């Protein structure tokens, strides 16, 4: 059976792509953020996951307002990055796993999550940059991928509770997949930031640190947040927290924190990285 071995949450600001292209990882501005990935690299080298299920929000590369899915799951053989209009390098295509994608889709719909199913997804920086942070140096991606998109553009957005439950359903779906696969989950976005309005540039370190604590110890507290509270406390784009909440839902049981870093600012954002390992091992047996 497939097994969720752990989960990574990380900020995904586009300027990370520029910093990688310009080899600025050791510049004082970027070093604290890039260094956060050293323990992630060690863990990936040890655990060697087969698949990454990437929960993220599209920023207007794949989805437009003509048809805006609240939740969407990719089921393609391959996913391509593309020009987003601001000059960050386009990364190599990502391999899909269509059997796992369709299994997740079938299980989600069976569990009353009426998601949009996609055989073509242009994956934007929120998908590609976390992958490049996990697997640096332009190597061939060693994992297959399943993209899961959550609408963070057009209100009404799904509630934190709904995203948490989506994550729980994704977690159960992965665990019931009959192939012996090691799966790593990603939740990409946040933490606090606001790009628009006269409050642009708002960052809330105490709230971000509170979220990171709750990610580990009390995800229910995150699921109880309203979107109004999240925007007030984390800024209008701080709603990307929903990708973290969904990822945490998919981890379900007890988790342990292998590493956590918080650094302000990266671009306009509270930069945060957490690596959580799944404690309920082996989970397929624990579920019997």
């Amino acid at each position, binding site marked *: 059976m497939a097994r969720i071995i752990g989960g990574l949450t990380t900020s995904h600001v586009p300027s990370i792509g520029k910093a990688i292209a310009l080899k600025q990882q050791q510049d004082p501005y970027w070093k604290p953020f890039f260094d956060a990935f050293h323990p992630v690299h060690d863990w990936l080298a040890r655990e060697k996951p087969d698949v990454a299920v990437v929960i993220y929000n599209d920023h*207007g590369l794949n989805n437009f307002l003509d048809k805006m899915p609240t939740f969407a799951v990719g089921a393609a053989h391959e996913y391509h990055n593309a020009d987003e209009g601001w000059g960050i390098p386009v990364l190599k295509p990502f391999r899909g796993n269509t059997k796992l994608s369709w299994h997740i889709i079938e299980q989600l719909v069976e569990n009353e999550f009426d998601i949009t199913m996609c055989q073509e997804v242009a994956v934007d920086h929120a998908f590609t940059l976390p992958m490049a942070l996990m697997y640096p140096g332009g190597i061939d991606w060693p994992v297959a991928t399943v993209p899961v998109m959550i609408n963070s553009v057009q209100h009404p957005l799904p509630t934190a509770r709904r995203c948490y439950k989506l994550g729980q359903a994704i977690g159960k779906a992965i665990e019931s997949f009959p192939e012996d696969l090691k799966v790593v989950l990603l939740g990409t976005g946040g933490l606090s930031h606001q790009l*628009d*309005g006269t*409050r*642009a*540039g708002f960052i809330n370190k105490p709230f971000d640190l509170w979220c990171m604590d709750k990610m580990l110890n009390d995800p229910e507290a995150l699921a109880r947040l309203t979107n109004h509270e999240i*925007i007030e406390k984390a800024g209008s784009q701080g709603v990307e927290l929903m990708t973290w909440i969904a990822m945490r839902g998919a981890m379900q049981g007890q988790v342990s924190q292998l590493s956590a870093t918080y*650094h302000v600012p990266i671009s*306009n954002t509270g930069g945060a990285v957490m690596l959580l390992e799944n404690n309920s091992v082996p989970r397929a047996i624990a579920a019997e």
Partner: protein
Amino acid sequence: MGFGAPIPGTPVFTGDAAARGYALNKMCFSFNSKENRDAFLADEDAYCAKYGLSAEHREAIKSRNVLQLIAAGGNVYYLAKFAGIFGLSVQDIGAQQTGMSLDAFKAHLAAQGA
């Protein structure tokens, strides 16, 4: 249609904004493609006409003013692609919206990490 109590200085992209800004956002969405960015730069009036921008949209695009673009129904994710045409980052547009110099805006960001 609404979102609850307004949060000062914080636009929320509701259905109302989306309805008002549709043509403007659709044009900005097109700027994912270099060919379209070049076409805009080559003939701004013709490009805006092709997307059916309202007079308010057109004025906002002419102004290059982000708050005015948001007031016209623009969404910041699509507007960022418009800003990209001029090589402007989210820090540049943050400085513009808050009336700060770029250096002051960067210092404001850094100060919140203390």
